[in-house]
């Protein structure tokens, strides 16, 4: 009577406290991510984004992970980040990549019972690939993307950018995401140990 059919005993529903945590940490992560991302709108630096954004945003995210003890929180974070990107004008692909990467990250965390530090690092590393959703138009809708860029940036930059991004570089950028994510996770972990433990908020 007190247990629904088919629900595992240790599956807890998300409570107000959890939703608030999702809200504040996703907001912080997104702000840091977005501020770093602003650099990327200068065409050439765009290719460094997969490294820089996850790196800096690792600090808030790792702190967030120490508070995540239930399934669904990181999935929500991924979804919300995707939706926020949509609202700020990045089209719909980041929503998909946000949901998928959030889910994957959540599952990885769950497999470590929300206690394993190495699973947290893996989780964030994989999660960071969500930003590739934003690179979609660059690689899979090339003509319209570059055409739209010409009036603002001029034909020269567009040509330069096109020459810097051959099709295989898509995979290169994914690798860069993973590297950035990993470094960000390590950075976050060391900051956790150095500061947050002492401040008593872990």
């Amino acid at each position, binding site marked *: 009577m007190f247990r629904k059919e088919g629900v595992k005993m240790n599956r807890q529903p*998300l*409570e*107000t*406290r959890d*939703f*608030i*945590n*999702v*809200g*504040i*940490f*996703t*907001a*912080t992560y*997104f*702000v*840091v991510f977005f501020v770093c991302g*602003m650099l990327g*709108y*200068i*065409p*050439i630096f765009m290719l460094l984004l997969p490294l820089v954004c996850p790196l*800096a945003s690792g*600090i*808030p995210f790792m*702190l967030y992970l120490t508070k995540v003890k239930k399934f669904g929180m990181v999935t*929500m974070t991924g979804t*919300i980040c995707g939706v*926020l990107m*949509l*609202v*700020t*004008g*990045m*089209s719909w692909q980041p929503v998909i990549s946000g949901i998928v990467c959030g889910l994957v990250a959540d599952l990885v965390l769950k497999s470590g019972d929300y206690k394993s530090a190495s699973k947290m690092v893996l989780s964030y590393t994989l999660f960071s690939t969500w930003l590739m959703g934003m690179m979609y*138009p660059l690689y899979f809708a090339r003509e319209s993307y570059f*055409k*739209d860029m010409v*009036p*603002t*940036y*001029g034909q020269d*930059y567009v040509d330069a950018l096109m020459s810097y991004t051959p099709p295989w570089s898509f995979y290169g950028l994914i690798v860069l995401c993973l590297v950035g994510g990993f470094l960000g996770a390590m*950075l976050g972990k060391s*900051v956790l140990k150095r*500061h*947050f433990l002492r*401040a008593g*908020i872990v």
Partner: protein
Amino acid sequence: MSQQTLWEVQGPKGFKLDPRTKLILIFTSGTILITGGQEGWMLWIRPLLAFLPLVLFGLLGRWQAFLKYSLLYTLAYAAEFYLLPNFARHIGFMGFLATGIVGVFTRFLPCWAMGQYVVQTTTVSEFIAAMEKIHMPQGMMISFSVIFRFFPTIKEEFSAISDAMRMRGIQFKSSFKNPLVFLEYRLVPLMISVVKIGEELSAAALARGLGKDRKRTNICRIGFTAFDYVVFALIVLSWFGKVVS
């Protein structure tokens, strides 16, 4: 004494927009202004959308915002259409960088202005009421409301931290040599602040009974007015223009 109830919750008045309209507006603005081209319809629609936030600020009587963004727009467009073409002789990296930065600025300024408009003119109560009207699940609603209210908070906290750090001599300029240090001195206090605020927020929310199964009472005025329909027409027009070109 006339037969009037004490609390008469009327509909919204004047040029106030429903939060749902504002959200669709940000989305429209963002997508069309950032990814849109310049041919055909777009030649008219883009400036229209770009100047819309100014108009909206003016209609609500928010003159400070109106002046601030008018000034920024003027600077940005002056840079893009006057300064840069004239300095095209300054080719090379600096010119390239400058063009990139100004291009970014002019692309994003209208979006940013629209976002600011929405954030400054919508209270959390209105936002939550709108979410409830579109039947968003309770949990998502809490998260979104928190995020919505939290962005300005983060900005304030960050300013305060920057001020404090500047007093200790850890400035933006000196951090170019060591960006990691800058991250550490800015982000770490921010995170600690965020966590403390989160705890207070949770306590306050629970004290107000948020998250229980009862429906929340709300006495703010939202709803679609004639002005909303005008804005809707604009939005539909913008999307039509984008699809057509």
